[in-house]
């Protein structure tokens, strides 16, 4: 029998996992799982990811293999999406094209996220002068229509998929900078930041360990939505002949190559476009779902 007044520490309680710590993210995840459109988007993206990862291994034909006896074939059991002007199987090319779209999307958005978020954190956390300089520079980049700036950057750097990633990445830097800065301004005077500073934490430590985790939700949402835009931008650049170079298939390039032959085969213009559409829609649905899940207050 324990004497009253003596504080006893129950081992089973202290050894238990710290429940409440992760519930914010766990709740958000649960809300996301219940979001039908987001789950539909995730399912679509899963299919696209399988196409991108396994690409050439799962296609029924060699995506670059030509068959001049079978040009402009309509969709059939043999060629599910028909064939193009070189007799190449459109389905195989659409499957392999997923890899380019995802690669460009992820790398471009990574560039934008790292640089943009970094600049936004610095702008929101540092002196007014630094903030002004960074954010006015972002205003300038933001003043250019996205595709036009990407085209101009590619004109300077040269055609090719690597430069497309850089160009698209640069274009989206201001979006991440604005979001990160806004989020920092919202919390920079919160007590936990002041406490960390009082305890002697340096600026970089505060930014990385206290500020960054607290601005992650809007950034995660923006990453998902930017992936949608980056895939659209890659497709547009490849459509203009600036991104992927022949004979490698990319969805934008396939549409561009098909343009001259729409009278012979309208199908050449349909399936690559549908692939872009569903992938972009997948990211948009997932992004909206994430927004609703991470910040239920914003839900409309």
């Amino acid at each position, binding site marked *: 029998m324990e004497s009253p007044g003596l504080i006893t520490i129950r081992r089973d309680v202290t050894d238990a996992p710290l429940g409440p710590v992760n519930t914010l993210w766990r709740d958000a995840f649960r809300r996301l799982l219940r979001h039908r*459109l987001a789950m539909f988007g995730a399912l679509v993206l899963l299919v696209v990811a399988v196409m991108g990862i396994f690409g050439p291994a799962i296609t029924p034909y060699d995506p670059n293999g030509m068959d001049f006896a079978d040009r402009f074939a309509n969709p059939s059991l043999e060629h599910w999406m028909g064939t193009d002007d070189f007799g190449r199987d459109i389905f195989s090319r659409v499957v392999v094209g997923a890899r380019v779209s995802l690669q460009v999307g992820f790398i471009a958005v990574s560039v934008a996220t790292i640089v943009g978020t970094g600049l936004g954190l610095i702008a929101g956390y540092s002196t007014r002068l630094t903030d002004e300089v960074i954010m006015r520079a972002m205003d*300038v980049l933001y*003043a250019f*229509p996205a*595709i*036009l700036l990407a085209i101009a950057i590619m*004109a300077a*750097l040269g055609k090719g998929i690597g430069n497309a990633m850089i160009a698209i990445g640069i274009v989206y830097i201001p979006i991440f900078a604005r979001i990160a800065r806004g989020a920092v301004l919202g919390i920079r005077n919160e007590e936990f930041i002041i406490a960390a500073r009082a305890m002697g934490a340096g600026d970089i430590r505060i930014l990385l360990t206290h500020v960054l985790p607290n601005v992650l939700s809007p950034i995660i949402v923006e990453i998902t939505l930017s992936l949608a835009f980056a895939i659209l931008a890659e497709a547009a650049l490849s459509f203009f002949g600036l991104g992927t170079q022949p004979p490698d298939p990319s969805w934008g390039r396939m549409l561009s190559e098909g343009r001259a032959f729409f009278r012979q085969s309208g199908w050449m213009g349909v399936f690559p476009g549908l692939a872009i559409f569903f992938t*972009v829609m997948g990211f948009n649905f997932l992004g909206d779902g994430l927004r609703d899940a991470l910040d239920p207050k914003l839900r*409309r």
Partner: protein
Amino acid sequence: MNYQYVAQRLLLALVVVLGITFVVFMIMQIVPGDPARVILGPYASAESVAGLRDRLGLDRPFFEQYLTWLSKAARGDFGQSLLNGQDVSAQLLGRIGPSFELAMVSLVIGLVIAFPIGIISALKPGSAIDIMATIFSQIGVSVPSFWMGILLIIIFSLNLELLPPSGYTPIGEDAGDWLAHIILPAFTAGFVSASIQTRFIRSAMLDVLNANYVQTARAKGLTERTVVMRHALRNALINIVTIIGLQITALFSGIVIVEVVFSWPGLGRLAFNAVEERDYPLLQGAVMVVAIMVTLVNLFVDLLYFLLDPRIEYA
């Protein structure tokens, strides 16, 4: 009236325009290697490369090059096209009109679609119409505009032969023909912007419909029509105007693509051709004019916002 806001907004626009000139100037500076060699190709003689370097002023110090270029650009002199030797400014002038016409018609088409859908779905949140509107706006933002343009050409030009697939007729020459040519490209760009605006208009309307003054208006016994049109919509308009302003940059981005797909003789197509031909002065001119046009439209919208809502102050 707070004229400090207007002054600060004008100053900010000036800073942005200066920044734009710097970014545009940098286009040629970041060309890997010697821009003159890149422009003329690997087989050009050393003399002609040296001649072009001299003509473009590439041998001079960086800031001297920028200031010279800037002072000329400020006077409307963007140099000569490397391809045909014509004044870049003259070529740009001919393209501003068609681009502006396309942008405005697209904007109007976008708003005509977005307003009724946005308002109705805000009035009946969660209804079948609201869900349809959400799906519509998701489809709109996910459709690549160049693909939509292609599909419209396949359907309306190649199959139904109702509208021309490409080209342009000045409105002063033949208004009917101008309209026939502008419908498909403007609808393509307008559809995408409508899908984004629908969401914003719905959101802005939902905000005001929950406001106290709207509840009061309803409590007074006003008809729903009066409540929506006179009390809610009028106040929602302030936010909607801002959003339309923010959309202008995206709209122009869409127009660049649409111009290429429909061979519309605007600034976007000119920039695209300049990239193909490595005609950097022409590209710089086109990019700069578009960016400045967008900045000015944004400035105009911001000032309009100020007029609509005198409470706004520069933060």
